[in-house]
């Protein structure tokens, strides 16, 4: 199953394919231009967007609202770019994806507070 989300001003299109393992695989590289040095998530990167803690209310509000930002965040965690940098980039990316303030800050603080174990797990 393929899914394409139009990119807009800050992102390129996000082209995903659902894999048998329950993850999503990027079929095209995802560009995020919200930073001076853009982030490029390579095609073939597999994600289940699990760098965002699955607290029920977080997941409910997050689901479908910040998919590109979450893919970028997941990639930054996976490539160990530093937790603080990854989280701050995620916050900015959510803003650039159009996530309202009332949603993006709870999500951001969730990854700040509960993302350590996930970041460490990605290290191994």
């Amino acid at each position, binding site marked *: 199953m393929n899914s394409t989300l139009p990119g807009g*001003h800050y992102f390129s299109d996000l082209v995903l394919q659902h894999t048998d393992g329950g993850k999503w695989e990027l079929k*095209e*590289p995802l*560009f995020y*231009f919200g930073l*001076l*040095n*853009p982030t*490029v998530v*390579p095609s073939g990167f597999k994600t289940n967007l699990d760098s965002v803690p699955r607290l029920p209310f977080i997941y409910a509000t997050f689901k479908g609202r910040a998919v590109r930002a979450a893919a970028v965040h997941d990639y930054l965690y996976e490539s160990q770019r530093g937790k603080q940098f990854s989280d701050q980039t995620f916050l900015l990316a959510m803003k650039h994806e159009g996530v309202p303030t009332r949603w993006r800050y709870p999500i951001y603080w969730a990854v700040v507070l509960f993302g350590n174990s996930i970041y460490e797990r990605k290290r191994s």
Partner: protein
Amino acid sequence: MKTLTVILLTMILSACAVMEQVEKNPLTSELITNQLTLRFIAADDDPVERSLKIQQVVTKLQTRVDGEVEFTLVEFEQMVRQEIDWQSISPADQELLNFAFTKARQVISDLIGEGVVEPDERYTLVTLLTWVNNAAMRVR
């Protein structure tokens, strides 16, 4: 597309301004070169293919720059232009590249002057080519 073009032109103008400080502030210049290169790549329907083409062109140009044959800045610009498959890119991207090449040559000319590019001046070209290549290599 218009918005993207305006953004790109604005960024190129900014890049040209900071390129004058390549030696003083190489990090900023490198970051803006990354932006420009990646935006040009992202504008293509197949970013990976465009990225590979850019890497091939850079490799070819680096070989020329590293070689012993003398060339002027004008000749170098012509070399670059000849490597572009103009028919395969959109009119907007063509306009963008034309503008970028012209401005880049002006700025580099201000840095190292016109005429034959001396061996000790070639590092300016090598540095820029390396930055472009490094940015393109991130796309896969």
